[in-house]
């Protein structure tokens, strides 16, 4: 329970910090780079190295390569829909999440399982 709380606090601080950096910059396309910041990864991998060893961190990073391709597909999909269809941002960003899931788990299933 204590470890979950530590992960929660470190993750919260890391994600908020990168989000703040994203808020600070203009233009928006540049600020958007921080939407793909390794905020969760930094918090998780630093703990993984300390608690579970380097091999664990390396294995997590290999899977992260697949999910960063999925993030590319998700963000591109959201960008296209928001530019070409009059839809609300909250709905588009949430209902496009299956794109991330399908690509991420699909690549994992095909290449890393």
């Amino acid at each position, binding site marked *: 329970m204590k470890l*979950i*709380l530590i*992960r*929660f606090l470190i*993750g*919260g*601080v*890391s994600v908020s910090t990168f*989000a703040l950096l*994203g*808020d*600070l*910059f*203009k*233009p*928006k*396309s*540049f600020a*958007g*780079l921080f*939407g*793909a*910041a390794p*905020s*969760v*990864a*930094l*918090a*998780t*991998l630093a703990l993984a*190295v300390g608690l579970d060893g*380097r091999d*664990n*961190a*390396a*294995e*997590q*990073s290999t*899977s*992260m*390569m697949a*999910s*960063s391709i*999925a*993030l*590319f597909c*998700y*963000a591109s999909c959201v*960008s296209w829909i*928001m*530019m070409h269809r*009059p*839809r609300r*941002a*909250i709905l*588009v*960003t949430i209902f496009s999440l299956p794109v*991330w899931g399908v690509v*991420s788990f699909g690549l*994992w299933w095909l290449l890393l399982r």
Partner: protein
Amino acid sequence: MRIQVDPSSLKQTRWHEFAVRFLLGGLITAATGIIGKEYGPSVGGLFLAFPVIFPASATLIDKHEKEKKQRAGLEGRSRARQLVSVDAAGTAMGSVGLFVFALLISQFIGKHAPWLVISAATIAWIAVSVLIWLARKRM
């Protein structure tokens, strides 16, 4: 358009909007740890590139732009949608940098000092992301 730092945009964000992002970041990091323990690091690692705060950030951009335009007597929906689209395009470019970050860690963390590998990978993430952004801008 040149890259600018604009601290005034922070004033638009309310304390509960900061809290939501802290909460989401904390929850996904804790969940990633639990998933990794339950299903192994290979599955847990997938969530390291989950678009954790993207929906919240996009909604904030949408909301703030509409408020800004409405204060000027304009409707602002179309401009807000464009800004969310452009922000998402930036995230797509940043995800290439994130791939490089993950690649470097997976290849080198077993052989070199972890703090050095993680620091170098973070620098590589921002360098690759900015280079792609600059290249895209000039196209």
